């Protein structure tokens, strides 16, 4: 499709501003002005609408297609959550109002949303207190690791390393590195969970924390998790919970009860807020009592007169990590979601997401290699190694799925599984959708023997064929220029 810049015709306008009603012109000296106009497009409002509406039609979303992207929890996003952000008093609220004298009184509704969401999350995860500020999951991880550093510093220690299993998301080691830590990777054992003997060898007085996803990225719950937590605490180290997979245990298990000290939650995964084509997300972080002092500034408190206020005076805090109170619009959607679902709904979410995943796994396991044949949680990983022997790789299977109106699962992650295909159906999908997906996955497995070429050259039905990523990286063309 043509770029919007290529549709530009000199003189067209998409919006009109009011006539200037003040007598003066601005008095910006010429030497502070730019020489040339920014070459933005010149198009009408209709041109704009057509262009972007057409672009949207070249995009799959949860509302249009099944989107079993493992590790991303692509569940349905209730529309009332979207609506709430548009209410007058929420979407148009200036973030600096609380900094004005008596400003809290003008923002009571918004502060209540922040306070109650943090309370809900504390209850769900078994933590003492939450900060809603982190702007995404990875930002939550960074906030958490900063608090880990502050905790050890408060005890006069500067521990050097953070232990992370080899199946972890890439953000875990990357976040630890930005907080100044060395990363030590622990291999997974034959059952697909962190090898506890290897772990104990690495765990020492230099270990600041152990960062875990639970269930892990293979969709497996480590039955030894409590033992790992106990050992970690014995070594004076902290347990960090990456909440990427919280959907699996929602309403069933509180990470705090297992011994996790710090938790980050991805509201865009577990709590029904849309992923926005890659963001905005939101990654609130919760901590146990012994870490509360280190939470970022500011904090929302509920006063004895039941009003809400922002507080800033926390000398042990890691400081500010975001400009304000987090991605408020995203938090609001999650708040609405929790109100809708309620306490009895949480466990139903976990149960149905786990049932849906196990159902697909059972139906596919005779067609694809299942490296860890064990009851899974909300997601599972199959491998295309069998198909690879016949010349078809995971990426080919992913592309072929697109032809049948399914978004592909996550592929080549976790890194410890060769030709990984990671499938997460979520609780919101129906048996009818799962059955269709299963049928197509089986059909593709059969095509490997019968008509390989059709898989290797997929997709065929999208108006665009497979894109050359190597060319994009070798000859980077990263913008339009006149």
């Amino acid at each position: 499709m043509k770029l919007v810049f290529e549709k530009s015709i000199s003189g067209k306008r998409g919006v009109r501003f009011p006539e200037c009603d003040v007598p003066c012109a601005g008095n910006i000296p010429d030497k502070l002005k730019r020489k040339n106009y920014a070459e933005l497009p010149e198009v009408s409002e209709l041109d704009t609408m057509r262009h972007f509406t057409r672009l949207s039609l070249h995009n799959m979303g949860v509302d249009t297609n099944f989107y079993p992207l493992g590790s991303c929890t692509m569940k349905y996003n209730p529309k009332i959550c979207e609506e709430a952000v548009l209410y007058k008093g929420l979407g148009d609220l200036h973030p600096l109002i609380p900094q004005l004298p008596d400003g809290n009184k003008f923002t009571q509704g918004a502060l209540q949303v922040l306070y109650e969401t943090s309370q809900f999350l504390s209850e769900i995860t078994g933590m003492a207190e939450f900060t809603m500020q982190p702007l995404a999951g990875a930002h939550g991880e960074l906030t958490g690791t900063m608090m880990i550093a502050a905790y050890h510093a408060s005890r006069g220690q500067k521990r050097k390393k953070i232990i992370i299993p080899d199946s972890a998301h890439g953000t875990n080691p990357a976040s630890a590195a930005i907080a100044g830590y060395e990363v030590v990777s622990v291999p997974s054992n034959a059952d697909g969970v962190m090898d506890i003997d290897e772990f104990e060898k690495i765990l020492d007085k230099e270990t600041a924390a152990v960062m875990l996803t639970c269930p892990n990225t293979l969709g497996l719950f480590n039955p030894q998790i409590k033992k790992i937590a106990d050992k970690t605490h014995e070594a004076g180290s902290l347990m960090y919970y990456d909440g990427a997979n919280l959907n699996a245990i929602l309403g069933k298990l509180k990470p705090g009860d297992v011994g996790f000290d710090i938790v980050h939650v991805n509201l865009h995964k577990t709590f029904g807020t849309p992923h926005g084509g890659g963001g905005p997300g939101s990654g609130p972080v919760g901590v146990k009592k012994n870490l509360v002092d280190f939470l970022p500034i500011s904090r929302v408190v509920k006063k004895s007169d039941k009003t809400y206020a922002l507080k800033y005076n926390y000398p042990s805090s890691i400081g500010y990590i975001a400009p304000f109170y987090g991605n408020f619009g995203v938090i609001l959607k999650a708040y609405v979601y929790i109100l809708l679902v309620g306490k009895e709904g949480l466990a139903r979410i976990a149960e149905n997401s786990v049932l849906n995943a196990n159902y697909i796994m059972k139906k596919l396991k005779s067609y694809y290699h299942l490296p860890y044949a064990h009851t899974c949680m909300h997601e599972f990983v199959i491998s295309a190694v069998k198909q690879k022997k016949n010349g078809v790789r995971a990426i080919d299977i992913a592309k072929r799925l697109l032809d049948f109106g399914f978004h592909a699962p996550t592929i080549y992650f976790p890194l410890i599984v060769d030709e990984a295909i990671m499938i997460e159906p979520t609780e919101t999908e129906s048996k009818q959708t799962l059955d269709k997906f299963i049928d197509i996955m089986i059909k593709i497995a059969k095509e490997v023997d019968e008509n390989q070429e059709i898989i290797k050259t997929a997709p065929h039905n999208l108006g665009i064929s497979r894109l050359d990523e190597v060319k994009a990286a070798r000859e980077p063309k990263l913008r339009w220029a006149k």
Partner: protein
Amino acid sequence: MPYISNTDEERATMLAELGLNSIEELFKDIPSELMSYSFNLPTGKSELEVRHFVKGLASKNVTDLICFLGGGFYDHFVPAAVGAITSRSEFYTAYTPYQAEVSQGILQSIYEYQSAISLLTEMDITNASLYDGGTAICEAVMMAVRITRRKKIIIDEAVSPIYRKILHSYAANLDFESIDVPVGKDGRADRKIIESELDNNAACLVLQNPNFFGCIDDLTDLADLAHKSGSLVILSTYPISLGVLKSPGEMNVDIATGEGQSLGLGLCFGGPYLGLMTTRSKYVRQMPGRIVGETVDKNGSRGFVLTLQTREQHIRREKATSNICSNEALCALAALVYLTLVGKHGLRELAELCSAKASYARERLLKIPVIKQKFESPIFNEFVLELPIDAEDVVSKLMNKKIMAGLPLGHYYKNMKNCMLVALSEKRTKKEIDFFVESLGEIL
């Protein structure tokens, strides 16, 4: 629960397929003593009840005041077409475009966004966006540290104090030495101090234009000085001002960042916002975040993909250029649609409108005899007034007249207790400005 579509019967069928009698059996790996059976949370409610309740909460927030509050976050007009596009669920219910062939909509929009921001800033290459304008500065500083292999950061104190605080938290664990340089008397960056700090340990000089006090400047001379010492210049910008102001590219900076909220995003109590980051071609491989590139499909047709991914955490893990995984794709889309609607000439017109309103307001306010101008530098849409009394008192009294007069600066700068930062956008009418001036005159 309405968001789970399977019936009890279907669940029973599925369990039977698995050879199980109950869903609980699926959770057998979790030791029973770790399971929780009670959660102190409200019971679920219907959509109708929740809507009513949330509307009630919304009404507890006051947003009908006349807004002169800015501080980097502005009350601009958002054309209806922006929301019409960003509320298309093909966009907002998608994820990061890992499968390019079914994500051309998002990918092309990001590519166009990268192009639009590059054109606006007159820089070479823009990434797919970061969280916000503040964390974008942190990422830019970490990028400069990687490029120069130096650890000293020089920051003009007229860079938003909201952002400087974030930078200080980030820097705490990374052994950066950060020097905050007090702003000059005229409101411009203090050349003398900065020059003395720019030595061969300096990784970067961080500046903002218009700065936090609304003052505008040509920073080319500082960029030249910084380059002479082998350090980089990071400039935080306000995109609407670039409709008229000298661009970061023209000032020869190395990395430009900015808060994209003004480009079609609501104020939304602090987020989601949009972190702009754009740089020189030679630094692209040190850039954090997603980047979209143009390529071709098997038939030679143009298409777009995520590219240069070997910089990123999912491949490089602890050696990545950043830990960032997401971008603010939907906010970037809003900014792109906004810039498309406003267009080449509209942006200039808008910037001049904001500037004219600010000039008028400043001129009228300074006619109140007890009010002084804090800085003599030229301004764009925001300026600092020095009042005869505590600015907090002034703001407080005007709130009763339904005016949000501005931001008292004592909270951020100890010696500026009587100072107030006042911002104008195209939304403020002459009538509102006149009412503000009269009301302020009355209370002083």
